[in-house]
Structure formats: C-alpha cells, structure tokens
C-alpha cells in the first residue's frame, strides 16, 4: 500500500471519527442542557448518534478526501 493511500485512510479516519464524536457530544450536551433525561438515555443516545454518524461519514469522507488530495 502506498504512503499516499495510507495518509488518506488515516486522515479520513481522523476526520470522520472526530466529526462523529462531536455529533455525539453535541447530542449529549443538548440532552443535558434542554431536558430531564436519564443518564442511560443520554449515553445510549450519544452512542447511537455516534454510530450512525460514523456509518454516514465513513463512506463519505474517504472518497471525498481521496478526490481532493488526488490520490
């Protein structure tokens, strides 16, 4: 595997993981700030948001980055 491909994989992993974590954190923050939710709902909901965000972003970010970096 070329170093270029490795870099794209690594950079995109950092991007989609960070973005998903931010989405989950935003969800968590909203639940804390706006409602009287149980900790299970907050944690479970954050985990579900993280999972779905990862699923949405993984196949989106990698090709986008590859195209952008011309790999």
């Amino acid at each position, binding site marked *: 595997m070329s170093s270029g491909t490795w870099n794209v994989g690594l950079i995109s992993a950092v991007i989609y993981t960070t973005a998903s974590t931010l989405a989950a954190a935003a*969800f968590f923050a909203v639940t804390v700030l706006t409602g009287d939710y149980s900790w299970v709902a907050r944690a*479970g909901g954050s985990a579900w948001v993280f999972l779905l965000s990862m699923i949405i972003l993984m*196949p989106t970010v990698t090709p986008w980055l590859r195209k952008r970096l011309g790999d």
Partner: protein
Amino acid sequence: MSQEEKQTRIEELTVPVAGMTCAACVMTIEKALRGLPGVREASVSLAGGKAAVRVDPGACTLPDIERAIEDVGYEVPWARLELLVPGMMGAHCEENISAALNALPGVVSVRATSATDSVVVEYSQALVSAATIKKTVRELGYQVTEKGQGEDSLDRERRLRQAEIRRQILNMLFAWPLGALVMLGTFRDSWSVLEGVLPSFMGEKLFLFALTTPIVVGPGRQFFVNSWNGLRRGVTDMNLLYATGIGAAYLIAVINTFWPDAGFGGEKATFYEAAALLTAFIVLGRYLEAITRGRTSEAIRKLMKLQPKRARVLRDGKELDIPADEVEAGDVCLVRPGESIPVDGAVVDGYSAVDESMVTGESLPVEKRAGDDVIGGTLNKTGAFSFRATRVGAETALSQIIKLVEEAQTTKAPIQALADRVAGHFILGVHALALAVFLFWFFVGFDLWFTADSRLVLTPYTLADMQVFGLALLISVTVLVISCPCAVGLATPSAMMAGTGKGAEFGILFKGADAMEATAKVQVVVLDKTGTLTKGEPSVTDVLAVDGAPGEVLRLAAAAEKNSEHPLGEAIVRGAAARGIDVRAADSFQAVPGHGVEATLDGAAVLLGNRKLMADRSVAVDGLLTEAERLESEGKTVMFVAADGRALGLVAVADTLKETSVRAVRELKRLGMEVAMITGDNRRTAEAIGRELGIDRVLAEVLPQDKAAEVRKLQTEGKAVAMVGDGINDAPALAQAEVGMAIGSGTDVAKETGNVILIRDDILDAVAAVQVARATMRLVKQNLFWAFGYNAAAIPLGAGILYPFVAQVVSPELAALLMASSSLSVTMNTLRMRGYVPPVKRGPPAASPEPARREATAVEVAS
C-alpha cells in the same frame, strides 16, 4: 516474466462476480474496487455478473481485486481448467509450466503437480481462453488433455449460487424453529391461549436470550461480517442495514433483560423475537434472492449452454474428438444426427435439416446441403454431414450474439439512471433518515405523543414502560430495516435482462437498454422498400418496344446492365437470359446513381434509366409515357431504353412483396404507429406499392444517400423515428433514426449498424421488436411503481407517522417481512416475462390478402 512485468501490460481487468442482487450491490463493489490503489475506474454489471476495472499498470493484481470483492461479501467465480499433462519431471517442470501460464494476462493461479500429471488453472475467461492456456503448455513441449469438461464461469457461478442456497437453507433451518420458539415464548404471557400450552420457563427472558443469541451470532453473523468488511473499505450496503437493525434490536432486548430499569421499556419490552425473526426474515429474503437470481437472465444462460464443448474433426485422415474451442478455421468437422454443430462453417458433403431456432428464432428446421452455411450451437436433426469450419472461437455467430446480448445487458437505460441514483445512495440516505427520525422522536415526538397504551403493530406488545431513548431507538431501527432499496435497484435491470433475453430468443438483438427504451417510444416506422418489404429480387414483367421488337429492347438493356450490381440491372440480365437472349457485355459502362446507366455497344450509345436520365440526355419518351404511367400505377418500376438519342422502348420490373409485409404494416399500425415507406422508385410506382401494403406515407424518389436526410425531416416534426432496412446499404439512415433496425443480418451480427438487429429476414420481427420493447418497458414501469411505491409507503410507516393517531409503531420484524416481500414482488413480476411471446408471434399468422400480381411473369407487349 515476473509478476510485475506481466502487470504492466494489463490495463483493463475483467472479473466475474457472483452474489449480486441489485444496484446497491453494484455500487458497493464499485466503491470497494475504486478504493484499491491504482484503480482509475470500476464498472460493475449486475446483469453480466462482471466487473471491469481500469488500473494503473502494475498497481494491483487480479487477486487484489478478488480480495476486495470478497471482502464486501461477494464471490469471484474464476473459470477453472484441469489439465492432464503427462511428462512433467519434478519441480523444474512444474515451475516452468507455472511461470509460462502465470505470464498470461488473466491467469489467476496455477497449480502444477508432477506426481499426478495435473495442472489446475484458475483464470478470467474475459482475458484468456482455455485454448490459449492449453496451447501455451503445448508450446513448452508437453502433451495436454483436458480432464473432464473443466468448469467455466457460468458453471462456477451456478455452483456458488447453489452453495449460497444450501447455506441459507441451513441458516433458515436454524433460525426459523428457534425464532418460532422465541416468538411463542415472548407472547406466552400476552396470549392466554399459549399459557395453558407452553411451559412457563419459555417465557423467561433468560431462556429467550439463550435462544436468540445463537440466531444472531449464527445466521445473523454474515451481515455483521460483510458490513464491517464493507465499512473498512468505506462502503455501505444492505448488510449494514440488516446488521444495525438486528444488532440494535438484540441490544435493546439484552439491556432490558439484564438492566430492566435502564429505560428501554423494561422486561415487558424485550424484543428478542424482533431480533430473532428479523434475522429469520432476512435470511429468507436472501434465500429467495439466491433462488430467483439468474432466472431473469435465463436466456443468456440458454445461449451460453448452446456452446458445444466437443467437436469431431478430420485431421490427417483421422477422426478426432477434440474440445470445440480447439477447432481451427479450415478444419473439416463431422456432425451426426442429433449432435450440435460445434462452430460456424459451410457444408462440404451430406444433407440434413438443422434446427436453428435457438440462434435465429426460425421455428422450422432449415435444410442444409453442400455449400450452405451452418451455425455453431445449432442442432443437427436428421442427416449426417461434414462441413468446413469458417468462424471459430469468439468469431462464431453464437459468440457474437452472446457478446452482444451481454453488452446490452450491461448498459443502462435512461429510465434506470434515477433508480440507480436512488438505490446507490439510499443506504447512506437511510442512515441519515434513521438519525433524523431518532433525533425527532427523542427530542420532540416522545414528549408530544407517547402514551401508556402504545403498542407494536399486529402484536399484543405494550410499550407502556418504554422511555424516550427506547422508543426513539426502536423507530430508528425500524426505519433502517424497512427502507432497504433492493426492490428499487432490481426493478429496471431485472426487467431489461428479461427483455433483452426474450428478444434474443426470437432472433431480435437489442444493442443496449437505451435501444430497448427508444424502441418502445417509437412513433414513426420508416421501412425501406427493397429487401425489407420486398424480397429484393425483382424480375422483368413487361417489355415495350416502339418499333415492335421487344427482344431487341431487352437485349440492349441487358447488355447495358451486364456488369451492373444493381438489383434492377441484375433482374434485367436474368430476364433476358430467361428469354433465351444472348447477353453480351457492353463495350463501356457507366452507372448514373439514382437514375440509370449509360453504355456503349457496337458503337451505339445506349441509355437505360428513368425519365430524368432521358430528359438530361434530351431523349424524347413522350410516346411511351402513357404505357409507362399505367405500369407505374401497377407498382412496377419502368426504365426507358434509348440508343443514339432515340427512345426504343421500355422495360418494366417489379419486385415481389414478402409474404409477411402486408401483415407487418397492419400490425405496426395497430400498435399506433405511423408507417412510412422509403424508396428510390418514382412516386407513382412507390404509391402503388404503398397502397398495396396499406402505407399512407410514401417517401419516393429518394436517392440512397438522401435516406438519412428524409429520416431527419421526420424527426424535425418531433417524432421518434425507427428506420428498418439493410444494415449495410441503409447504414446512414439507420444511424440517423432514434432506432435503427438492421433486418436480415444473418449471423454476422457484429458487422451490423443499427441498435436493433433482426437476425432473420422477416419484417414481422420489427413488429415483434416493438412489442418486446413495449412489454419490457411496461415491466420496468410496473417494477418501479411497486418498488418506489413500497418505499414511499413503508418509510413513513416505519418512521412512526401513524403513531400520533393510533399509538402503534411497526416492529422491526414486520419491517423485515415487508422489505422481503417488496423485492419478491418485483422479482415475481419480472419473471412473468419468461412466458412472454410477442403477440405477432403467437399462433399461425393471420390470413392476409397477399398480392398475386407480383409473381414474376414476363408479359411482352408490343406497342
């Protein structure tokens, strides 16, 4: 040659793929392949079961591609060749053979074993043939015999499909009984009738956990593994929908069992039966897909099966039984009654009747005697004969037809573009929708509408203890499961596969899905007269002489046309010969395209042609005009004959209408189409023929080079035009029309212009082509209606649109059942095409008033 050196020569790699069911699978594999280093372009054909990959030289190998495809849950059925190679002496010979074969582009693996004299080769049939592999070994100095029949990609694909069916049957045998027990156990406490029948432990959560877990980690494991492999490559597919659905349902159930106060609905909402039945239904869907897969492309399989495996050839006076792909052009092949003809050729000796229906659609056996052509793959019926091979391997008619149909099935109709876009991007869209639905029910829906009497549709389940996260998650999971776009992805390609295959059965080859769609939309059909509506074999019907010597008129006309290749000229020469006239070639001959000929004979300047030619050469034909007009009004073509500037007489020639022409025109009109005839004949003649055929619009006096312009004129009226004509002479007009139908191509289909090829010389096939195309497009629209209709109706249901009104949500297992039934309904609808026969081909042809007049009878009339 090293592996690297070999790779530098490969730029486009074609790989067979098994296990695809819909457009989403295509997108998945394309994405996985595009993720490989050095891959510039990847195009996957669902119908053809192939992936074409353009790679940077040396960037990746066939095994890399195979791995990428297998990683996302599909299989690569390489062709496999088992050879008996006696004479290998140890490791050195094994290495030699392996190295030579590995150097061939398309060879994936070689296993040479001197101890058993065997060489096993896996290869891509698209890149290298079995014959080339055997030849390579032979060139190294070894004798080669094929063990058994080998196994081509088609066999392997079938084997893999059967293995998949067996695997899913095992999964079902495991999942369904356990799933049923889980369901009974779950509802034991809810349905009083079960309480008296089932022991109480069956309702215990731990018991249900113990039954469900093996289902999820057993039959359900494939979805988790495949989706994870896909995600690692940055692709999402149906497996991901299934995995998240099953995983989430199972997780909720486990949490509610072991941590009932966690807020997921508690002990009364352990959705074990959801996880179990969801898995069972999805496995059922997989099983049904595996069974129905391939059935829509049955026609191409039938064609492929026709390719004979063995041939008996005469070499050095000996009769040898060899693999059909080793027959060489020039070999004399022997065929006994009941045997298939191995390759294309010309009969040398013997007589028989051959069933060519499988290739040409001709239902009656065709007689063959010395000099006649035979087609590889067709079936010899009665007699024995020998023939000389003329076209072998990829050149045979059958190979060309298979290639054409395969290519047609890999193309995408314009109507498919939308479906593909939707299906291809649907998975991501569904996950985004599931996230949005989750957020909505979490932050808005639960507070607004949740009531204690909430239930799952069609179950006695109460969701009273459900809390905000549990409800939002349940609905989110249901959306994931219910939204599977398999049916959308299947709708168009499956119908196109069935339609192109059905066309091929009747000798009608659509060169692409776009041709199919365009044919269905045709409004005007332009029929070329000569050779299409008529037999193209005109004969002399009348000869008129000014001075009372018609024989002399015919003699001069025939002499002028002696060297002509024009059908009318040939008819005149034939007519003269038939009357015992000694036809001598003219001293000089000059064709005047679209008008006639001028020639010199014994010092006299002879002119033969139409009025325009006579007018151009200042020859007065006034005395012949009355008779000429009468003959023309009967549909005959009149040519004036003049010598040294003086009109001598005229020759009338008429072509014979094909037996089916009148019926074809009537059928085309019945289909609501405008029918036009295009011809170089003068208007009066053309209109007479048009009247006879029932054609209202006659495009007469059109020179061959102007036919395309006439088609263009019709197009400027805003009409979709189909041109039916000779694939070679009418090529420009065929290319100009929206649909060019090349009629009577025979079996050399590769040379034909036009996007629809009618193998037989029967104008009724043009009608059949329109009927097949319309039936196919009807099927496409029905399929799209069902598929889009399903998703349009099911997604809002899954997303809980009814909940505010009835306090019920769709359960994940019901969602899975709905999803499976949508794909099934589309597939079943497509399978209806299997029994389709174009109406024009049903039963005996309707009696049509065929004209008797055109039977060639020479009547000589003295003026």
